[in-house]
């Protein structure tokens, strides 16, 4: 690779890092100044803490941690997901 290409690639990388840092800084400031909006946005994207999806994932993780058969754990997790099991 020629020195010009290496320099150009490095400059692009630095530009990308600056852009990402600026975006993170902007987002961080907005989240700090408007914490309620940040929390609502987080819930809109990731869902509520007590959603069946998160509960099903917790059931899956707990079942695996108890060394139960994977098929049984997946089945139980699915039942929690569709609401057949509380």
């Amino acid at each position, binding site marked *: 690779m020629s020195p010009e290409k290496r320099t150009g690639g490095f400059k692009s990388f630095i530009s990308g890092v600056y852009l*990402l840092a600026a975006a993170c800084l902007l987002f961080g400031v907005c989240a700090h100044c408007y914490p309620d909006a940040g929390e609502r946005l987080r819930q*809109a*994207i990731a*869902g509520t803490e007590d*959603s069946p*999806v998160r509960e099903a994932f917790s059931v899956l*993780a707990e079942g695996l941690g108890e060394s139960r058969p994977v098929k049984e754990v997946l089945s139980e997790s699915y039942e929690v997901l569709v609401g057949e099991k509380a």
Partner: protein
Amino acid sequence: MRRLKITFGFCALVCILGWLDHVFCLWFLLCSAAHELGHLLMMRLCGVPIGSIRLTASGAVIEGGFSDYRREILCAAAGPVAGLLSAALLIPVAPRGAAVGLLLSIVNLLPLYALDGGRILRGVLLLCCSEERARKTAYTVSIAVSCLLMLLACWATVCLQAGLWPIFAAMMLLWRAGERDQ
């Protein structure tokens, strides 16, 4: 020549995942790394030349010069196998990480072209049928499965209060499934 390219989309995805749940993000990255290492190891063992490795928002893309379909099937299957092995190793120490690895491997085995399952399906079809028929069948299956996933994502968002991430993920898979085989 091996080159690692990290796209802005990948960095943005990591930042967003980290903001949403940093523990989940960490396990997702570790399990994904184990998955891709499985691919790379099998490609090395099969003597497949490795081109560039691109980390994008829709996943990692490893460009390799496959000379036959059997090697492509083996290399595609190696990722989910490595993911399942890493999940099994994580069970006693980090069940949550094991769950992430398990789900990642299961999703990767879906018959969508961009995912390993789709590549395996395409490889098997190419071994059995003509090239045109195999590619057409694999493409049709990919589109059908990705549309079904989109419906499931909408159901999860509306009925299960899962948030918008299932729809974003389904959109990404639908977009990748629509990429024609080059």
